């Protein structure tokens, strides 16, 4: 066979359900939310009331300060029910904000606990001067060599430098099927905490204890290592400046009110209530929860982002570099057609092809047997059925497989090898064989020759067209990406001709053929110089520089530790197609922030219409006309606005955690939709909400 295909290290789990069909609408957007989480996280929310923690969010810090001030005021006048009511709801507003964050973090905590169980203290068998010594796993240093045999827990992250072993990585990936780890090549990385199931390997430790992959994972899912992302910082600044603007508006309102003769109606409690209603508390409260939930959505898809910055960058990606094999095409080529030379029937060729492939256990060989069965009903013959058959197995050296049945010898394999075999036996090669070979190659396929030697001498019967099979639904998916403004570039080691054919079939925008790691690197730099943000996946050590250079580099968990170190995300499933989902999650994260910011700011209009007449209708009766909601009394109007402001936070927690529904459409359509939903919705919703709360409040005796 012409290619050596990697054996899958994992059960067929790699081929995720194709895009399209079921589950498409909420491909990105799921994420469970259980209302019980709110109750469970309540104690955590209270713990977060520490001002040193709260100061991280300027908006909520102002609310906290407001709560403290109103508490003091309420204490100084304990008979005033209104003061207590406002105080209570301001505290609730603060707690609700913390609750959102606590719920978001809570989901990661469960995951972290599972991981912690894997990080048991291990005893390492360190090799020192050719001798083995037993040391604690925590005493290992970078460069130490350790031995692991069946049943041992790998003591730390490292690369296998000697031997092959099957390893149970379920502790980190959740996947129970064991994977093969071997020295050299791209599957040498082992992770501390995983278990060696068979054989013996020598591992060179590559990380310090406490900084291992599992340690970092725990930090990431718990959100302990969470830093604000650039975009989050920019948004925080904007929100802080809006807070200052409203602080100014409210602080200066006191002298204005005194001048207007409305001193009594603008007590500090009322002003604090107005301030909290005006500053963008909704987004301020949910901002960090949105970020944590975004990371969490990735974790649910078994992707670990090393920083929130990477998740955000994923949303900005404008060029996707996708490896052909495994991402765009199924991992292996498959037989697509039998092409006989003149004078040979297709059925005869199929029969010979199947016979010669029975001893070929590679996926390509299997696909030939299957194709013959499918198209000609040729039953797959068991090797044992044919007595006296001498099987010739496929090897990388001969690049041929076949069978000798008495005087009949059948062979199939790479064109060069088979041609040599035929010529060796003085056989003839039909004139059209070369033309047919070229034709298949031009179409992007790989030609295999089938030849036979029998009483008529050695001769070529025809060709097998091996084809890269483009995964189902990829074309549509690339179309979606194009509409989102993302260009896809296919990377392949194939020749340009083959690459072009597959690129056209898959519908990618561009391709890089006969790609070396240097070519890949040069392509990334070129794209970046043009201002594009590049995302790619990779697993090999030679991918590491490109992974580091790319704006979003997703390393496969099966890859080398060098690759995992270089990338800013690790896909535990090692499924390169997931890059597309990662981009969508990144976008969804930003959209959710924008939507809630818009909603939060639009909310203010209604609150003014509730509170301004409540404060000033006594001084200027004409301002009562602004009370368009017809709220019952000044007290209930202000209280309703404050209650709405607090409740809307809780109401939006599920949205913040799940993320705004995302569909791959153009920026224009997306803006129109979100602006309508969250802009206009944010304008109208509080009018209705405040009125409803007011109606309920009037039912309570003593109010209204």
């Amino acid at each position, binding site marked *: 066979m012409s290619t050596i295909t990697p054996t899958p290290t994992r059960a067929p789990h790699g081929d995720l359900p194709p895009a399209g069909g079921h589950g498409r609408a909420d491909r990105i957007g799921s994420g469970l939310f259980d209302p019980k989480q709110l109750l469970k996280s309540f104690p955590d929310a209270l713990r977060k009331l520490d001002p040193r923690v709260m100061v991280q969010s300027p908006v909520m810090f102002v609310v906290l300060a407001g709560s403290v001030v109103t508490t003091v005021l309420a204490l100084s006048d304990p008979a005033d029910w209104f003061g207590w009511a406002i105080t209570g709801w301001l505290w609730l507003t603060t707690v609700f904000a913390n609750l959102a964050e606590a719920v978001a973090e809570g989901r990661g905590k469960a995951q972290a606990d599972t991981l912690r169980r894997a990080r048991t203290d291990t005893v390492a068998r360190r090799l020192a001067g050719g001798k083995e010594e037993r040391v604690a796993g925590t005493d290992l240093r970078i460069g130490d060599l350790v031995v692991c045999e069946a049943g041992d827990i790998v003591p730390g992250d490292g690369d296998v430098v000697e031997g092959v072993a099957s390893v149970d990585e379920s502790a980190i990936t959740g996947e129970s099927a064991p994977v093969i780890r071997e020295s050299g090549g791209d599957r040498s990385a082992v992770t501390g905490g995983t278990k060696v199931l068979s054989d013996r390997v020598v591992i060179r430790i590559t990380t310090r204890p406490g900084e291992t992959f599992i340690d970092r994972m725990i930090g990431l899912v718990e959100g302990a290592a969470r830093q604000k992302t*650039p*975009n989050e*910082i*920019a*948004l925080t*600044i*904007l929100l*802080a*400046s809006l807070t200052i*603007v*409203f602080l*100014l*508006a409210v*602080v*200066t309102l*006191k*002298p*204005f009110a*005194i*001048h*207007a003769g409305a001193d009594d109606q603008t007590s500090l409690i009322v002003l604090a209530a107005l301030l909290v209603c*005006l500053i963008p508390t909704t987004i301020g409260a949910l901002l960090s929860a949105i970020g944590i939930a975004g990371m969490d959505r990735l974790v649910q898809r078994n992707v670990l982002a090393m920083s929130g910055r990477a998740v*955000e960058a994923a*949303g*900005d990606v*404008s060029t996707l570099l996708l490896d052909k094999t495994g991402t765009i095409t199924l991992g292996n080529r498959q037989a697509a057609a039998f092409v006989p030379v003149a004078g040979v029937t297709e059925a005869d060729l199929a029969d010979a092809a199947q016979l010669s492939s029975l001893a070929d256990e590679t996926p390509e060989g299997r696909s030939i047997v299957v194709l013959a069965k499918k198209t000609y009903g040729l039953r797959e013959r068991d090797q044992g059925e044919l007595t006296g058959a001498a099987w010739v197995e496929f090897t990388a050296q001969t690049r041929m497989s076949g069978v000798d049945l008495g005087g009949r010898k059948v062979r199939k394999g790479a064109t060069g090898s088979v041609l040599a075999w035929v010529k060796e036996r003085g056989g003839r090669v039909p004139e059209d064989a070369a033309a047919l070979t070229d034709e298949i190659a031009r179409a992007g396929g790989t030609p295999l020759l089938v030849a036979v030697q029998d009483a008529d001498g050695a001769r070529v019967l025809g060709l097998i067209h091996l084809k890269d099979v483009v995964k189902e639904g990829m074309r549509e998916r690339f179309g979606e990406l*194009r*509409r*989102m*403004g*993302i260009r896809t570039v296919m990377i392949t080691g194939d020749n340009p001709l083959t690459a072009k054919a597959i690129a056209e079939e898959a519908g990618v925008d561009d391709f890089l053929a006969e790609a070396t790691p240097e070519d890949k690197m040069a392509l990334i730099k070129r794209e970046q110089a*043009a*201002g594009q943000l590049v995302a790619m996946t990779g697993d090999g050590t030679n991918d590491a520089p490109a992974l580091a250079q790319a704006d979003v580099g997703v390393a496969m968990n099966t890859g080398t530790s060098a690759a995992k170190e270089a990338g800013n995300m690790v896909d535990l499933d090692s499924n390169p197609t997931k890059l597309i989902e990662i981009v969508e999650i990144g976008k*969804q994260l*930003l959209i959710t*922030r*924008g*939507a809630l*910011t818009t909603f939060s*700011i*639009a909310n*203010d209009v209604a609150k*003014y219409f509730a509170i301004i007449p409540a404060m*000033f209708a006594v*001084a*200027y009766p*004409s*301002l009562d*006309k*602004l009370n368009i909601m017809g709220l019952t009394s000044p007290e209930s109007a202000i209280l309703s606005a404050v209650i709405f402001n607090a409740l809307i936070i809780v109401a939006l927690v599920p949205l913040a955690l799940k993320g705004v529904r*995302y569909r791959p459409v*153009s*920026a*224009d359509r*997306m*803006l*129109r939709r*979100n*602006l309508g939903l969250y*802009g206009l919705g944010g304008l109208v919703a509080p009018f209705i909400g405040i009125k409803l709360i007011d109606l309920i409040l009037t039912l309570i005796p003593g109010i209204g």
Partner: protein
Amino acid sequence: MSPQAAGLLQLTALIAALALACRPLGDHMAKVYSSDKHSRPEKWIYRAIGVNPAAEMRWPSYLRGVLAFSAASVLFLYLLQRIQGSMPGSLGFSSIDPDQAFNTAASFVANTNWQSYSGEQAMGHVVQTGGLAVQNFLSAAVGMAVAVALVRGFARSRTGELGNFWADLVRGTVRVLLPISVIGALVLVACGAIQNFSGIHQVGQFTGGTQEWNGGAVASQEAIKELGTNGGGYFNANSAHPFENPNPLSNLFEIFLILLIPFALTRTFGRMAGSLRQGYAILGAMAVIWIGFTALMMWTEFAHRGPAFEIAGGAMEGKETRFGIAGSSIFAVATTLTSTGAVNSFHSSYTGFGGGITLLGMQLGEIAPGGVGSGLYGMLIMAVIAVFIAGLMVGRTPEYLGKKIGTRQIKLAACYILVTPALVLGFTAVAVALPAPADSMTNSGAHGFSEILYAYTSGANNNGSAFAGLDADTPWFNTTIGIAILLGRFLPMVFVLALAGSLAEQRPVPETAGTLRTDKPLYAGLLVGTILIITGLTYFPALALGPLAEGLAS
């Protein structure tokens, strides 16, 4: 023809004239600021002030140029007023008091032209023509230079260079403001405005007694007063004075001059940024606000009912019969939505809502279309804020004209939008709380509050118009309004130029289908919404206690 129909016709004629003139002027200005040729007089100027006009400046040196030049201008204008009494050509007026001289100097250098003096009773020919009129040109040219620097920030990439301040200043004056104001002055003279250096005339009145009228280079100052969105009148009555604004035609022409450059600069912006459509989106947002405000103003002024108004045919108190309700309303909106501040009627006498519209117009930051230069950069700052919120909603790090709006850009834009609300609300609060400033109010209650709010709004936003009714020539008001004017003008410029520098250094992001289209009506609409909500919400409580309380009562 009913007055309403006449008003509509005037507005239509105005829009048509602007539409015709903005294209060639915008293109001309783009050429002026992009050319590398220097005319002979320009070379003389560069040699005289000792600068190399071809030297590119990064934002700190550009800013140093702006600030140094403006500081020198303030000092010069201050001294000129302080020695007026001992100079010839001063019509015998004495020197100006220090607090008023500071206020006036700050005001004219900052393109505000707040006047706490009466022109015909305080300023002679030398100060008027040699000091104030000169600043009318230069302060306008400074505003345009800063706007052009910001546009270059968007247009250029991977360089921190924003052009040369001195070249921009000189070119804006020589190639844009001077030629148009010469034509403008001629048109005004043709309409009947005066232009002379005569002394004070004693004129008899119909009712007996005499009146003093002085002459002056009025038409020339009037042209640049409007064209440069300065607004400082030769006479106290400003554009209501028949020597400044003799008839409805001159009135319409003056409004045209006010709006000409600010609107045309959007075309310049589109040209220089390499996409005319981007300029149209900004123009669209400005035009929607301007036309909307004008329509509202006409509606509230025409709709005003009551016995006195019925007899007068509408809300005519404080308005000139020459211009009527429509001519006054269009002028009032144009002057407050730009940083002009010239008035042809008393804003204090408008209906409650009408007064509110003039106030809100200034509080929006004077960006629709705004002052010369300052309108464009103010609007672009709002465009950055709008793009940030909207950009997030399409799932990308927001970008405008290919430049990423990141932490630094938002920080600078946020600082920009903080300055004027802080000045307006802060000073108004202190003035209302202190006993002495409050004594300057003519009215009590909501209207009195509007007087003070209007004064600081006008000062901090560099408008310069007065609500009337407030005695502003007190040390308190002269000083605080002077400070508000200077901070309101130059602090935002610091942030604009820093922003321009940070943008110019960036590598542009190529446009894709995932990019938010900022040259579409949807975005222009979003921009209008952002402006109205963000600035509207800031001032809502203050407006409620002033014009709204008044307007809703009637």
